[in-house]
């Protein structure tokens, strides 16, 4: 699971959960994969990024020094930061770990790189 995917995941489908975001991320095993840097795209993606969630993910991925706690202005002119965002979002692949619903504590395992967000009938 790429951290760009993590940015979009919620446990909102659980009955009674209001926001379900950001999920609490735990990484037990990750690998780095190379992915072509497309600065224009990273900039275009910014409105869909939840900066707090991304910053949290950077801390878990031990890349906290790369990402400022709040989104800087004029980020499009900061190619170095765009590059670091790209690395965080597209080059870290979480192979084993888990996601935890911030409201209910429900655990969603990540196994072989695939997050299992499937709910049981009594949870929805």
């Amino acid at each position, binding site marked *: *699971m*790429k951290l*760009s*995917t993590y940015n*979009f*995941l*919620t*446990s*909102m*489908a659980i009955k009674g959960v209001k926001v379900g*975001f950001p999920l609490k991320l735990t990484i037990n095993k990750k690998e780095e994969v190379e*992915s*072509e*840097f*497309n600065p*224009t*795209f990273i900039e*275009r*993606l910014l409105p*869909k990024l939840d900066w707090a969630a991304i910053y949290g993910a950077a801390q878990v991925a031990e890349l906290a020094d790369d990402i400022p706690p709040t989104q800087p202005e004029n980020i499009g002119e900061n190619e170095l930061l765009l590059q670091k965002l790209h690395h965080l979002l*597209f080059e870290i692949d979480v192979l084993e770990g888990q996601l935890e619903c911030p409201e209910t504590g429900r655990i969603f395992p990540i196994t*072989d*790189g*695939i*997050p*299992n*967000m*499937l*709910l*049981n*009938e009594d949870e929805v």
Partner: protein
Amino acid sequence: METPYTDHLTREDYDHVYEPAEDSFLLLDALEKDLNFLEKLKPSLCVEIGSGSGVIITALAKKIGTGSICLATDINLKACDATRKTAVRNGARVCPIRCNLTDALRSRTVDVLLFNPPYVVTSDEELQTQQFNSGAEPSTERNLVFSWAGGKDGRRITDLLLDKLDDVLSPTGVLYLLLLQENKPNEIIKHLDSLHFRAVKFLERRIPGEYLHILKVTRSLT
């Protein structure tokens, strides 16, 4: 658009995962036909529901390259796994998520949504509890049944998605939906109109035993 390599998938994989067929290729052709539109749309998030082997989302991811995030959902773990392998085999960036429809995704984020639903008209019993029981691994046979059994009018799963489409698509989002004539596409177009979506028959094809449609669905401007 190039058809992705699938030589890494075996007969055994297709015992658990829907094998690409005419319906899959019609959806690919629809995307090919609408490439100009997609290039102008500049989607940042593309999602395929029920990706199965992963050929469709992989073909799109190859075409868009690094210009978008491509995600794939499937309730079947073996399909998620096949999708991941197909993406890797073709050097495409696709991330599979095991979930029902788009339930695990934040609201109103999806710019391009693809769905080749289980559309075959069956009894409702055939798809009972299909989206549940994450703990229990369904049997081989059940995995495949869930890939095609659509219940009454072959619409049970499709209707579930359409009723929450407003919460799924981004403000400029588009859905490409594969349907069978028996799913009553005209009725679906009317239903979508009442939900403030504009649906058009974008592509159709007769194949032996089936008449297939691709609906293109966008938000109504009014």
